[in-house]
């Protein structure tokens, strides 16, 4: 048995009043002078036992009436029966990540999950509150609403081409439930439970909140998918160069899975090649030289039950090699990277005065440069004053100072360039802004909340990219990683304005907009203005994101689904508890789901029979308390106080 208004049960304490009066206050009744006491004594003696029994019965009736009022006010109900339930706050975590686009038989997995969610909502009451979290679209706000509101949201849910992070979704669900005033809370997890949807285990993100998990879908592990398309080994080809496009197929997910994947390479709407790949294999298709301009293409495999991961996009700008100059001593790693890029004809080295981009060591050459500058600090802190002086002379509003913090940290930042992802920093200087910059600078990378890579405009309107660490192995892991070459290529090419791939992002990620872009055109053709954060969110579509400045093309970014979405292997049921929370109710049958949700299940509310019973009790009590004919004196209003003469 449960109570919808449990606080009202405190009213049951009121039964103490009649009990107290019965036990202790009866001697305080009126004292009436009555000479005919001898008649009364005889009557009273004969009926004393009956009177005591009747008084006890009256007490019981009154106590019972109070308890019934309390029970009615608390809205008691029998638990575990009927279709009604106590008001419940429920978060429906609906996994609409790419993998839920899998078609099993003739039914899409997401539609199966939506049907279950809708059945849940059908059984809801007006007092329930729901949030809908779409695991594949975490950027969509979850707004509390009624079952009707949530039903509409569920029906409008479509498969996202982004990945789903169920751990993050469950943590978010718990935070939402914390805002609810309802006593009964639960999470409904409707997902294919891919193991890759749980990036972290042992976190128990739902904690003690009950999670009803749908495990009834038919598990599928075999999937044909393309997992990557890489152009030029990560360095997009320059104008007039041939480019190798490497395509990789998803590895086999079960023994004996040797079915080859036929695929085609389409570039600028023309098929440039075809191949057949066994699971887990790579193939390389060479593209003919391109002229200057953007090259967009995709690799397309034959469709299977999960269509969304059968195509992967790429885009790059075919451009002339940028003219680069190194000024000062950038260090052996930067110098080597420039040499490699020159040898690969991805840069042309020249004098500072003629260069489009200057790699400036310790601020050298800034006074003579007319192009953009990649400014590298010195390894020796004693050279910082010279650097700061040159920065000030060039109108760069930053100073570098020795850092008081130490230790290893990972580069972070919403606008973190792709080549810097995963780079660790061992030593750095503190960057401090000075003066009044002509345009707000932009932090591209941070270490422990402090800027590490900053871009902006100097006093002469030239672009600069200032790093807080020298490019040597003692300061950062970048020089000794393969990302060094890509970083220098990115800095001298894409960043400096020569164009190129702006980075590698998967669908769902927040993408930094190029500095010149004013809006972005999504693959669906939707144009979205770029806001002050300079980030593009809601990238749930795979395809080309075209950055524009007015009508001018700035950049094209190809977004592909995360590889993990193609791995359909579900999580081991034994790991559910650690991956989700301590209270899990896994349901694998449709009918069982209806009984599992709304755990504060109740039978019909009992307030009306309680009230009815209470009314009957009170009638009985009144009848018993006033049994016997009406005193004629009372009709005349004569007895009250008249007999109190003896008091």
């Amino acid at each position, binding site marked *: 048995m449960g109570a919808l208004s449990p606080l009202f049960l405190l009213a049951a304490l009121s039964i103490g009043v009649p009990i107290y009066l019965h036990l202790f206050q009866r001697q305080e009744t009126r004292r009436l002078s009555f000479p005919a006491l001898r008649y009364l004594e005889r009557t009273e003696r004969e009926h004393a036992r009956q009177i005591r029994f009747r008084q006890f019965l009256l007490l019981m009736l009154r106590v019972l009436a109070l308890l019934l009022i309390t029970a009615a006010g608390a809205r008691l109900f029998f638990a575990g029966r009927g279709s009604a339930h106590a008001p419940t706050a429920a978060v429906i975590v609906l996994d609409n990540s790419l993998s839920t686009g899998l078609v099993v038989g003739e039914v899409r997995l997401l539609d199966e999950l939506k049907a279950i969610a809708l059945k849940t909502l059908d059984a809801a009451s007006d007092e329930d509150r729901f949030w809908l979290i779409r695991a594949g679209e975490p950027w969509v706000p979850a707004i509390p609403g009624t079952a009707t509101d949530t039903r509409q949201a569920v029906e409008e849910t479509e498969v996202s081409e982004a990945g789903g992070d169920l751990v993050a979704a469950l943590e978010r669900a718990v935070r939402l439930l914390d805002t609810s005033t309802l006593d009964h809370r639960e999470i409904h997890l409707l997902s294919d439970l891919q193991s890759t949807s749980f990036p972290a285990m042992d976190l128990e993100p739902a904690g003690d909140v009950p999670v009803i998990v749908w495990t009834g879908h038919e598990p599928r592990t075999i999937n044909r998918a393309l997992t990557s398309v890489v152009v030029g080994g990560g360095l997009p080809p320059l104008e007039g160069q041939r480019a190798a496009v490497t395509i990789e197929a998803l590895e086999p997910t079960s023994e004996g899975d040797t079915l080859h994947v036929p695929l085609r390479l389409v570039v600028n709407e023309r098929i440039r090649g075809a191949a057949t790949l066994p699971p887990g294999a790579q193939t390389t298709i060479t593209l003919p030289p391109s002229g200057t301009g953007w090259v967009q293409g995709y690799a397309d495999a034959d469709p299977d039950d999960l269509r969304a991961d059968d195509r992967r996009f790429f885009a790059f700008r075919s451009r002339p090699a940028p003219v680069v100059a190194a000024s000062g001593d950038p260090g052996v790693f930067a110098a080597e990277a420039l040499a490699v890029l020159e040898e690969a004809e991805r840069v042309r080295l020249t004098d500072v005065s003629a260069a489009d981009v200057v790699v400036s060591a310790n601020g050298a050459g800034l006074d003579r440069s007319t192009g953009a500058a990649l400014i590298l600090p010195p390894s020796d802190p004693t050279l910082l004053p010279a650097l700061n002086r040159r920065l000030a002379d060039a109108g760069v509003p930053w100073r570098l100072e020795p850092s008081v913090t130490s230790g290893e940290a990972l580069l972070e930042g919403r606008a973190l360039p792709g080549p810097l992802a995963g780079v660790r920093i061992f030593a750095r200087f503190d960057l401090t802004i000075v003066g009044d910059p002509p345009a707000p600078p932009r932090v591209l990378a941070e270490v422990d909340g402090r800027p590490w890579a900053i871009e902006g405009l100097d006093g002469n309107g030239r672009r600069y990219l200032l790093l807080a660490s020298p490019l040597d192995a003692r300061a950062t892991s970048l020089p000794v990683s393969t990302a060094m070459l890509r970083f220098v290529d990115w800095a001298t090419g894409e960043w400096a304005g020569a164009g190129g791939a702006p980075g590698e992002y998967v669908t769902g990620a927040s993408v930094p907009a190029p500095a010149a872009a004013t809006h972005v055109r999504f693959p669906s053709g939707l144009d979205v203005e770029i806001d002050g954060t300079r980030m593009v969110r809601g990238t749930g579509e795979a395809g080309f994101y075209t950055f524009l400045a007015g009508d001018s093309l700035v950049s094209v970014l190809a977004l592909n689904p995360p590889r993990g979405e193609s791995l359909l292997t579900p999580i081991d049921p034994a790991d559910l508890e650690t991956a989700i929370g301590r209270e899990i109710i896994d349901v694998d049958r449709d009918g069982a789901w209806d009984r599992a949700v709304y755990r504060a299940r109740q039978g019909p509310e009992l307030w009306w029979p309680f009230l009815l019973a209470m009314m009957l009790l009170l009638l009985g009590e009144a009848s018993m308390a006033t049994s016997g004919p009406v005193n004629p004196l*009372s009709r005349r209003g004569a*007895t009250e106080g*008249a007999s109190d003469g003896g008091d």
Partner: protein
Amino acid sequence: MAETKTPPRSRDRADLLDPASLAQLGGIELIAREVVEGFLMGLHRSPHRGFSAEYAELRAYQAGDDLRYIDWRMYGRSDRYYVKQFEEETSLRAYLLIDVSESMGWSSNPGVQVSKLWYAQHLAASMALILLRQGDAVGMAAFHDRVVKRVQARGGRRQFHEVARHLRDLEAEGGTSAEGALRDMAVRLRRRGLVVLFTDLLVSREETLTALKYLRHHGHEVLVFHLVDPGERELPAASEARFFDPETNDELLVSVADIRAEYREAVREALDEWRRDLRPHGIDYEIVDTDSPMSMSLRAYLRKRERLG
């Protein structure tokens, strides 16, 4: 107490008024006169004219009456023959015994409902007036545990004032031990006569019965007026109350609703017992509700008087 109220009009017979209205008229003598006048007027108009033979001053002529005693003045007024009566004609001595115990002063609704003592005082005064008018000798005594006031039985107009004065001064006090008082009276009343007892009979039944039989044994005619307040027949409207006896101060906690019907039955049985116990001994017993007109009680007296001859 000054008698300042205006007597009721002839058609408002005082003997038919309820005691509460009667009490508004004035003092005991005035009320007694009004009650008696009204009562006698009712007798004259009633089909029972034969009762007028009891009238002390005049009575209807009967065959064999001495013509010398015919009141010719009344004949002129009423065209009927009346004969004059003489005080010497009767030798009845009546003793009015008033119970003045504490319980007699009780009223279930003071200010509205007269007390039993008030009713007894005025009924006794009215009866005394009738007795005296028909030439009987009237005496009175008041008692509770003992006799507290006594007036010798005499006849004549002055006796009424004497009796009325003593009746007026009575106050309810003390307990009731009727047996002792009645035995005492039996000893004092040397000549046989009519003993009229005004009491609420909230006494020891056996002892009181013994005393009444003792009176009867001494040759007295006994008439008992059992005064009952309506509030004694029905319990008050309280759901639960502590009742106490003003005489003994005994208390009893009672759930009124629980015993109302049983109590009513107990009272009825108690009254029946008194009637059943007194009648075999030739003792007349009349229940007098103190909210009823006095004429009913006076008629009871007349019935008794008629039997005495």
